């Protein structure tokens, strides 16, 4: 996916609104697709606004809102270029209609880079259209006209029209050519760059039903679904005749995994007249499971096996620059260390849920999904329906974090509604969510690094022991047509894996989803003698994208071991990083020795070391880094940086650690470079707060253990998300403004916070933290 919109051509279309007013849509045309299809590329609309006769502008929020602020952010860009007051703008959530709205998804921090230019164009195009209509009405040159607050003004004659008065006429004029549009000079922005509250805030603070879990349909029944606790297992037998007799229970089904394709979803479904009746009945449910091959999966065994593999020749070499062994031989100092991190649950606070209503061959579904188009495909496949017979109503989500890329809950509810012919709401319990995730994969990294006598990093070897799918997921009933879901493919999209327990083939072994690394992952290209080796263990546990996939784990290991090397070199860890970035990098293309089709990566494409140096220098200055040597005993400052999702982030934390390993993060300074414009500073700051606190929870406490092929943890007592008194009291979000196209903020602020704080704890205590969560090493929050 192209990170910026520069290589696309845009078109506008204008049409009249029934009852007066105008509708304008922007269409994007990716040039690559255009060339590839001999000029037959479809036009893809990506904005949709109406101007009513009373001047009220309605903008469709087309993308799924998971709390990232996109429902406010995209419309405000249009409104500024259109030159209307924000109070005159109404936002409507669009349903799934990709023919009308183009791409509708939330993931990969892509909304900003892919919409920044077209959203401004549609606003500017509508404004030009309205000015043309006024010029015609007054018979004056358009150059004499100005706009402000939703009006076209002619200063010399003191005449003025509201946009609403012009909209019907404007709709009859031909759409302006995008190439002729002049976009606002940033100094003239009235909305962009000003802090703006979320458009749903009034409804949120008054408890309005906004979320999927709040949907109610007439005659609706409530469902619960007991899945096999071992991933991929299925029901042997169950006491469903007994369950059917319990109060409030209407229907009980045993569902085979193959029936609802796309995830580990075989189980027993109980449909009752209330959520509580369904849960009570479920307590009496007795199931004998056919657990299948994943029952052998154990984190304890993975950890042992990883250590054994680290001592053997790797299954694959992903990258080899220079001569890493010669580098170590010539080094003045060599350091070795092993790092690990666990599986993680996404844990959005709104549990997975879906409501479905099947009537006259059509299915209506209300779902919170980051990828609603993929959800529709999955439902159609599972229920053997045409996608055109399925309507997806998009609802606000109580968090996504990548979990709602996968949609496994949607076919479940759809299946029940189609079987029963009555509306069904399926609500997962917290335990369902924790036991049936597509987890952030665990990983094991074995490092060796060498510095020369001058303290320069001359050799680095990483051996990453990761996962490959253990067994082919159940074949879907029909050939798959779904596009890849989000940043990583859903279960079922991977090539045939090796048999369980067998040694994987050396080349082209598939990574389990999000268990990958790219051949250009930093510090690749910046160390003269560098090797990145891989070994694989078969895994039956489903894995998937988790906020800043890949990066959320890789930043911790890479930036922590970088800190170890700085320490070995006797250098200031921040300056050591700047020096590293000053090395002329090896070209981005695959290095000699890199496997063909190396897989993974992509996130490092376009990495510009000068921008990273910029944020490092700024965080050094705003945090008072030079004063770190004067801190009291037990207090330390740490630094780390990471590039992902086109965003450059460097962070510094100051932490205090007492004799009982109790940790207080006193303050965090974050500096991000996401280009020349912070579109909504309030939301941008929120995303940094959120990323920091999310990452600190992962650092200290969060872990999903796998034993017997099951997730060990079931609710928040065992999966302790951060609470207020544990959170840093101060998080400063700074922006390094550079002349680059704006990019997204949902993810890139997260990865560096883990190593930043781990490195600060090292500075405070001399203890290096090499495995997550550090709560298991005896640490806790103060």
């Amino acid at each position, binding site marked *: 996916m192209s990170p910026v919109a520069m290589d696309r051509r845009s078109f506008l279309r204008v049409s009249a609104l029934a009852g007066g007013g105008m509708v304008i849509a922007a269409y994007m045309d990716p040039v690559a697709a255009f060339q590839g299809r001999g000029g037959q590329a479809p036009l893809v609309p990506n904005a949709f606004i109406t101007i009513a006769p009373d001047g009220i502008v309605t903008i469709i929020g087309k993308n799924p809102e998971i*709390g*990232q*602020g996109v429902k406010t952010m995209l419309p405000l860009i249009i409104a500024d270029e259109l030159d209307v007051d924000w109070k005159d703008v109404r936002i409507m959530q669009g349903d799934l209609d990709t023919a009308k709205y183009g791409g509708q998804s939330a993931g990969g921090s892509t909304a900003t880079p892919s919409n920044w230019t077209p959203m401004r164009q549609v606003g500017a195009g509508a404004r030009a259209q309205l000015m043309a209509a006024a010029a015609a009405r007054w018979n004056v040159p358009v150059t004499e006209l100005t706009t402000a607050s939703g009006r076209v003004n002619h200063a010399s004659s003191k005449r003025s029209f509201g946009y609403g008065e012009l909209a019907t006429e404007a709709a009859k004029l031909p759409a302006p050519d995008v190439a002729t549009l002049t976009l606002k000079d940033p100094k003239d922005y009235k909305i962009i760059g000003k*802090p*703006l*509250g*979320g458009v*749903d*805030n*009034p409804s*949120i*603070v*008054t*408890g*309005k*039903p*906004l*979320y999927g*879990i*709040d949907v109610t349909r007439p005659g609706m029944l*409530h469902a619960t679904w007991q899945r096999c606790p071992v991933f991929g297992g299925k029901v042997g037998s169950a006491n469903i005749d007994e369950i059917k007799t319990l*109060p409030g229970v209407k229907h009980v089904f045993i569902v085979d995994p193959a029936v609802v394709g796309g995830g580990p979803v075989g189980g027993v479904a109980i449909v009752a007249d*209330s*959520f*509580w*009746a369904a849960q*009570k009945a479920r307590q009496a449910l007795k199931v004998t499971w056919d657990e299948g091959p994943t029952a052998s999966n154990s984190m304890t065994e993975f950890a042992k096996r990883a250590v054994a593999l680290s001592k053997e020749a790797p299954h694959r070499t992903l990258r080899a620059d220079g001569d890493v062994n010669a580098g170590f031989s010539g080094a003045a100092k060599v350091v070795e260390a092993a790092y690990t991190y666990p599986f993680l649950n996404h*844990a*959005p*606070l*709104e*549990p997975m849920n879906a409501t479905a209503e099947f009537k006259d061959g059509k299915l209506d579904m209300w779902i919170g999904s980051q990828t609603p188009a993929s959800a529709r495909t999955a439902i159609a496949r599972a229920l053997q329906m045409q996608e055109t017979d399925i309507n997806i109503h998009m609802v606000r*989500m*109580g*968090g*996504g*974090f990548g979990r709602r890329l996968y949609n496994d809950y949607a076919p479940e509810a759809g299946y029940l509604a189609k079987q029963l012919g009555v509306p069904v709401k399926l609500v997962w319990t*917290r335990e369902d969510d924790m036991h049936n995730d597509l987890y952030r994969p665990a990983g094991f990294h074995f490092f060796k690094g060498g510095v020369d006598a001058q303290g320069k990093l001359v050799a680095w070897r990483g051996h990453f022991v990761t996962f490959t799918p253990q067994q082919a997921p159940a074949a879907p009933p029909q050939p798959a047509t779904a596009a890849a879901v989000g940043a990583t493919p859903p279960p079922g999209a991977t090539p045939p894996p090796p048999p369980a327990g067998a040694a994987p083939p050396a080349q082209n072994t598939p990574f389990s989803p999000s268990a990958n690394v790219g051949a250009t992952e930093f510090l690749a290209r910046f160390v003269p003698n560098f090797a990145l080796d891989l070994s694989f263990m078969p895994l039956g546990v489903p894995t998937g994208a988790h906020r800043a996939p890949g990066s959320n784990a890789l930043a911790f290991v890479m930036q922590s071991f970088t800190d170890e090397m700085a320490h070995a070199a006797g250098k200031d860890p921040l300056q050591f990083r700047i020096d590293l970035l000053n090395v002329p990098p090896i070209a981005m293309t695959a290095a000699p020795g890199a496997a063909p089709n190396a897989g993974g990566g992509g996130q490092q494409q376009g990495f510009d070391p000068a921008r990273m140096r910029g944020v490092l220098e700024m965080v050094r200055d705003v945090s008072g880094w030079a004063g770190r040597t004067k801190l009291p005993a037990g207090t330390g400052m740490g630094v780390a940086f990471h590039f992902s999702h086109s965003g450059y982030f460097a962070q510094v934390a100051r932490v205090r650690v007492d004799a009982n390993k109790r940790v207080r993060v006193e303050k965090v300074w974050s500096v991000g470079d996401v280009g020349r414009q912070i579109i909504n500073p*309030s*939301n941008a700051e*929120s995303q940094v*707060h*959120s990323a*920091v*606190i*999310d990452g600190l*929870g992962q650092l200290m406490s969060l872990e999903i253990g796998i034993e017997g092929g099951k997730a060990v943890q079931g*609710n*928040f*007592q065992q999966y302790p*998300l*951060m*609470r*207020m*008194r544990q*959170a*840093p*009291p*101060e*998080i400063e979000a700074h922006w390094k403004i550079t002349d680059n196209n704006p990019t997204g903020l949902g993810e890139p602020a997260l990865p560096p916070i883990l190593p930043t704080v781990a490195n600060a704890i090292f500075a405070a205590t001399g203890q290096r933290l090499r495995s997550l969560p550090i709560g298991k090493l005896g640490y806790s929050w103060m």
Partner: protein
Amino acid sequence: MPFALNVNGKTTTVDVPDDTPLLWVLRDVLDLKGTKFGCGVGQCGACTVHLRGRAVRSCQVLVSAAANAPIVTIEGLSADASHPLQKAWQELDVPECGYCQAGQIMSAAALLANNPDVSSSDIDAAMNTNICRCGTYVRIKKGIMRAAQLNKARLAEAAKSKDDAPKKFIPLEKVEVTR
């Protein structure tokens, strides 16, 4: 079994099993969807409501224990988003996904009703019952501080007018019990 529930000043009789948690009566019987389900074990606080003027986790309160007692939900906090916490939350743009915020506001409302001059550590202690998965804690704390400030201004204004000045933090807690 029938139970008389006094929710937001209005009494309704509901017929549900006596072990039904108040949360599910509010959501599925009374159609008050502002109170959220997050964990079902009293850990996350998304289901926080006021029962007899105290913040409770409604997933842990059986309907039988809530009958004939004043209950206030987020929908009853104010008719028009005028409660100082609701104003402060909007002014500071506190929510991200927003799912936990009704529970956060209800916990904070109970705190401020008893302690209008809250300190940072008072807030930390009282709000430990509520999880925000998005991590909006910095702004939640600022929002509570700001609401306390707005409330003082409101009390000062009311004192000047010499009318029936509210003595407590918020008149909301004056729930009319059973009619």
